[in-house]
């Protein structure tokens, strides 16, 4: 089994500033994938960014980037130039087989105008 831990229940950031959301995971698998999902009040989980564990290069998607530390089993999400629309719950997830994703408990991000 895999476990995912998000130790920050809530975070806040000033509009246009940068914020980092933390995630650690535990897996015995050598091949796995990591994801960050965003869940706004509409409840739909929206894929933000993904990382293959075998790739050393950190994934980036526009204003979103990750800091993947494989040895430390850490997978943090950095949001640059934060926008009001970034306010949501953010979930970190891990999978190896793809049949089952393991999610953390989420971080609620507030963006302050």
């Amino acid at each position, binding site marked *: 089994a895999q476990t995912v831990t998000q130790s920050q229940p809530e975070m806040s950031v000033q509009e246009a500033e940068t914020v980092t959301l933390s995630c650690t995971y535990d897996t015995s698998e050598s091949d796995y*994938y990591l994801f960050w999902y965003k869940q706004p009040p509409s409840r*739909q989980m929206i894929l933000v960014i993904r990382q293959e564990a075998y790739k050393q290069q950190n994934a980036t998607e526009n204003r979103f980037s990750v800091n993947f530390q494989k040895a430390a089993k850490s997978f943090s999400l950095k949001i640059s130039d934060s926008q009001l629309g970034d306010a949501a719950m953010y979930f970190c997830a891990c999978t190896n087989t793809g049949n089952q994703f393991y999610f953390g*408990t989420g971080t609620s991000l507030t963006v302050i105008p």
Partner: protein
Amino acid sequence: GAGVSQSPRYKVAKRGQDVALRCDPISGHVSLFWYQQALGQGPEFLTYFQNEAQLDKSGLPSDRFFAERPEGSVSTLKIQRTQKEDSAVYLCASSLAGHKVGYTFGSGTRLTVV
């Protein structure tokens, strides 16, 4: 369709009542997943289909929970004799290329058992 569609969006059931939750995945998506998200928690895996075959149902919490996808497209999650602890958001997700690119989720059904 353009996205994963779930209905109803909200469902209130009296304890002991049976409910059926529907998921319409993206057309052509082979894989379909159901997750349960309790209040303040992350989603937890319930079951997985590849086409019409239910390949993994290890996450179903009891034999009151049953899922089907008879023609490999629309799926129904049925909960019999609902209990208060079944109150949660039930999320459906589908995928064309599997876990490597992530799932596309629907907006879920919020089930409240009173």
